[in-house]
């Protein structure tokens, strides 16, 4: 049996961000609370990218950090909060006071964002959804438009429905549990909108906890949510989703989520945090080391294995 002759797409985080994230570009970071690509966001900060449009359903800590570092001029999102742990201090300052610089914010709902990714991935001109009727959002977001369905409604009368435009980021970055060297990416647990966000983009970077042999991937092809053909770079970055979690690898750092509300509330404290933990580290490995073994032991998880399934083989 021939082993795969696919291209090896593994790169360092530094090289991948340098190659695919450019000033003024549109960058999508996805991962719905789980598998948040934090380490990639930190590398964008280290490389000093400017004037980015960030697209992310749940803009949380990593987005607040990128805004505070001056990387972001526009945010497209459906939830701008620190999970259930409080506020994003920098984002609120920028929107509420315009200090130290304003932030343009395009507000959608979750399903509005999902439909934008779906339309983007399928190169459709728009995607309809049964949301927004009566909302004030269309008055502040010209992307939300109403059309008349070409088909009659259930009562035989013309039916009005809102639509959202496609989103096609220059690059989408996701974090996953594992991939092979060519980019066949396997995820489990909360899988959110990552696959659609990858297909919507021109380029895709997949950051993984570990690279595994082709045989591991091919023993369970249904778990491959993003196939190699959609991936441009594979970056190995263990614990790169901290303070979020990677199901089966490490738990969520809830204490840091709570701490962020306090850190981000004080602009100087926030800048000091960035200086120490992002700009003051060469890469994510140093960030991980600095947190220390004892810290990581506190986020360790036990084993809960799935039972194997039988794919069968022709006799």
């Amino acid at each position, binding site marked *: 049996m021939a082993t795969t002759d696919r291209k090896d797409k593994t790169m360092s985080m530094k090289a991948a961000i340098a190659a695919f994230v450019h000033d003024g570009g549109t960058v999508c970071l996805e991962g719905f609370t789980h598998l948040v690509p934090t380490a990639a966001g930190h590398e964008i900060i280290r490389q000093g990218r400017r004037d980015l449009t960030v697209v992310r359903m749940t803009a949380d800590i990593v987005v607040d950090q990128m805004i505070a570092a001056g990387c972001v001029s526009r945010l497209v999102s459906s939830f701008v909060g620190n999970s259930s742990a409080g506020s994003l201090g920098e984002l609120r300052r920028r929107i509420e006071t315009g200090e130290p610089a304003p932030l343009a914010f395009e*507000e959608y709902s979750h*399903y509005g964002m999902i439909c934008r990714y779906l339309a983007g991935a399928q190169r459709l001109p728009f995607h309809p959804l049964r949301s927004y009727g009566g*909302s004030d959002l269309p008055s502040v977001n010209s992307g939300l438009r109403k059309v008349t369905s070409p088909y009659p409604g259930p009562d035989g009368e013309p039916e009005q429905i809102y639509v959202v435009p496609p989103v096609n980021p220059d690059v989408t970055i996701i974090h996953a549990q594992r991939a092979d060297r060519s980019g066949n990416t396997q995820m489990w647990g909360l899988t959110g*909108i990552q696959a659609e966000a990858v297909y919507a983009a021109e380029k895709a970077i997949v950051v993984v906890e570990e690279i595994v042999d082709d045989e591991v991937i091919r023993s369970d092809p249904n778990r491959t949510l993003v196939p190699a053909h959609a991936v441009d770079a594979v970056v190995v970055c263990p614990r790169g989703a901290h303070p979020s*979690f990677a*199901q089966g690898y490490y738990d969520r750092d809830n204490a840091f989520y709570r701490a962020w509300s306090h850190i981000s509330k004080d602009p100087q404290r926030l800048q000091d945090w960035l200086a120490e933990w992002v700009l003051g580290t060469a890469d994510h490995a140093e960030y991980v080391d600095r947190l220390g073994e004892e810290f990581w032991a506190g986020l360790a998880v036990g084993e809960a294995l799935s039972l194997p399934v039988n794919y069968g083989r022709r006799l």
Partner: protein
Amino acid sequence: MTTTTTTTTTTAPDAITSSELLSVVASRELAARRTVFAGIGLPTLATELAHLTVAPEIEVVYESGVCGAHPSHLPETIADAVLITGAEAVLSMPALFGCVLQGGHIDVGFLGAAQIDRWGNLNTSVIGDWDSPSVRLPGSGGGIEVMANSREVFVVMRRHNPRSFTGNLDFCTTPGPDRALAEGIRPLGAGVTRVITELGILARAGVGEELRLVAVHPGVTVEQVRAATGWDLKVADTVDTVPPPTAAELRLLREDVDPGRVYLR
């Protein structure tokens, strides 16, 4: 203190917290409901308690995509790893929002808000002007979809005051069906049917109806609720007194649902 030899000693009624009160009242309202779309916090407590009391067949669908969770510990967020391990299903976002929610499979959605008006329209975007708000709130999340597509929506509000219960929303993020219909969009559900607060319960049946006061907690007067509401609140012909949490409800809540008092602050 003295010669108490009776059984229910751990549940002195004067020790009931507002979280416990709201959770118990919300749980009772879930009787006979099957599928609930809930976030973390008071809705989690209410649905877990309902599961042990009035709605044994209740199933919670979380906004993270988890259905039929069997968590080993009380989850801290809708995306807590303990919700996933051992769950019956974990759905992608398009399946959750497209098929489950918009497909009409949710009986009751739980929502919170900074502001609510007499029709049950909600503001979760800004306090003040949209362009330069005094407070930037988190935004819709899935709230717009929960409102548009759940059969009915319950709102739990810790604070009942005229700023939160307002005659005019600063911004309507999440419209109820009346606002949607005015724009020619037919929503699936009835909108907000219950608002549970520290003062009592407001209710409405659906399209065309304002919220009205249907029950007050013991010791709360109708006038007190009207004064705490920023519009001329309608009052039902008969205003019930909410029965206080029973010893059995409190024991389940404290010992089985949230023994670590993660949400029962």
